[in-house]
């Protein structure tokens, strides 16, 4: 078991024929993902990397029964690509694209919510169900299958945790990078609920960062209400000076909300174990799933 994605998922790639789309689709296929189609308007009827290409998402879904899409199209067109997938009834939309205008995303998000489908991202690394399938850009060789779920706002820190766990002999169910933008699809709250209800996931690592209040919301609404499995929390940006904007549109501290201290406190109060470094996160996750030897150094 896992959440959101399995080896049976039928995946399409929007922007398949672009540079990033091509590179990462090859990686996704090599990982074992069932990539059934690509969508590139105007290139319908051709094949690329041995994958049939369609002009529209609706067409690709009709012909292949796709239920997941990975979006690699450039930022000016990405919100439209998200809505096209939602309108076609694709159940899980994973948008990797960075730099989408906020108003475009505000509208696309409302559209996705109305369509009743799930969106991960944008500006995210996507997700991987270890040993089964991945949609996005998480490096292939770092995952191993096991029982720890990961949810993270930061792409590169997601990789750090996955690799650290794998090197310590602790496998993962699904790793989800929800993205660092202010306007997101699935939040910590929603992904944590999925992990809570997944019997294969025995502990969850949650990697947050300064800015916004999604970590606090997840602590109060999910972790603190009978989560039933250990949650290991980590917040990056603890030494960032207030008022400085650190790259992620999301990582902005304003007033007293969104600070590392407020997030760490909320997580502790909800009963999560809070760690200082990624190494500690890895060790704690190992202990949580009964592999105390995993505290070994890398």
């Amino acid at each position, binding site marked *: 078991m896992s959440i959101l994605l399995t080896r049976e998922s039928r995946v399409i790639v929007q922007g398949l024929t672009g540079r990033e789309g091509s590179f990462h689709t090859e990686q996704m296929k090599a990982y074992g993902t069932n990539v059934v189609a690509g969508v590139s308007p105007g290139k319908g009827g051709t094949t690329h990397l041995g994958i049939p290409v369609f002009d529209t998402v609706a067409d690709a879904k009709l012909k292949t029964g796709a239920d997941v899409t990975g979006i690699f199209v450039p930022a000016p067109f990405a919100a439209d690509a998200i809505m096209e997938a939602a309108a076609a009834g694709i159940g899980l939309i994973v948008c990797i694209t960075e730099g989408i205008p*906020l*108003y475009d995303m505000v509208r696309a998000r409302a559209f996705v919510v109305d369509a009743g489908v799930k969106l991960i991202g944008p500006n995210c690394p996507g997700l991987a169900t270890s040993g089964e399938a991945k949609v996005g850009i998480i*490096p292939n060789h770092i995952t191993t299958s096991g029982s720890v779920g990961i949810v993270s706002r930061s792409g590169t820190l997601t990789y750090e945790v996955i690799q650290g766990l794998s090197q310590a002999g602790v496998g993962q169910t699904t790793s989800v990078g929800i993205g660092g933008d202010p306007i997101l699809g699935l939040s910590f709250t929603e992904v944590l609920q999925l992990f809570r209800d997944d019997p294969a996931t025995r502990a969850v690592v949650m990697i947050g*960062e300064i800015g916004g209040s999604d970590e606090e919301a997840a602590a109060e609404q999910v972790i603190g209400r009978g989560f039933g499995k250990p949650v290991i929390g980590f917040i990056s940006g603890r030494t960032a000076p207030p008022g400085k904007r650190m*790259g992620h549109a999301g990582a902005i501290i304003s*007033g007293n909300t969104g600070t590392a201290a407020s997030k760490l406190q909320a997580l502790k109060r909800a009963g999560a174990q809070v760690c200082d470094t990624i190494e500690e996160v890895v060790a704690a996750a190992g202990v949580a799933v009964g592999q105390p030897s995993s505290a070994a150094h890398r």
Partner: protein
Amino acid sequence: MKFLEYQVKERFRAAGVPVPDGRLARTPDEAALAAGALGPIAVKAQVPVGGRGKAGGIKLAKTPADAKRVAGEILGMTIKGYTVKEVLCETAQEITRELYLGLTLDRDARKPVLILSAQGGMEIEEVAEKNPEAIAKLHPDPWRGPLAFEVRDLIFRAGLGPLQAQLTPLVVKLYALARTYDALTIEINPLALTRDGGLVAADGKLEIDENAMFRHKDLHGADDTEEDPLEAEAKRRKLTYVRLDGSVGVIGNGAGLVMNTLDLVQREGGRGANFLDIGGGAKAEVVHSALELLASDPQVKGILINIFGGITRGDEVAHGIIDATRDLRLTLPLVVRMTGTREEEGRRLLEEAGITPATSATAAARRIVELSSGSAR
């Protein structure tokens, strides 16, 4: 992208938002001419930061001679690092009440939010903190925008019912402006109620979403090159850079990773000199440019590069590092930690060039803190 007050007000005027009569002056004589034409004026420093009133950047002038004198005082002043090159000379308003009207992004609601308060002016942030019920909010549907009855409701909730007829079209216009310009923030503060009962935008702010600049190529915002010169240089190089106060230069890919690297440096007893995110998929040239930027900072006593490859490829990063250390004859201590996509190629290239990659982020942070404190004279 930010705009100066006069630039914002030009857009307000074009959209039918009432603004005071005003003229831009670059010299005291021009300010005197403005006062001659407009009568008593407010002389206002044009800088892309708040708090200029408290810094002495806004003064009243009753006569052309007054205007010349106060403009002479304000022009050339430095306010929060910005030198005042222009003043806006505006007809002095007889203000009976200061309101606040603005729009920003509410990330918790995942929507833009219109904000209206009967208690506007310089202390609006304090009002928001201490007296939140004095602030009324409306989250318009992002597809249809605010409807008239929703706007009326906002106005009544703000306790501004008697001004409803005047305020409703203003709120609608402000929202339209926000959409037109992809505004992250657009603000009228104070929105002044004048003695004759009119509403006028006494000050205005506008910041455009950088991600949407491809739709606004014709717009020219505030010249903010007088910020920190390194930040200005970073902007020219299209690097995401923030100056900090330590001595360890940090380069990484991904905001979370870079922030975590800074946390690790601090944990090991050092302090970061900067935040520098080369982003996803960075090419060798970007790494080169980032290293060149940090090497030009006299505050930097050592550089830590932390790369975890997803879209970013280790071999590309390694090429950038190797070329930069050679081209720049880099003598500063340099520690590289690299893992992820094309990690083996990257590490091999670095080792061949005599740079030994660190084994973990923590080890790398410890090493650079040791090396950079040693090289600090």
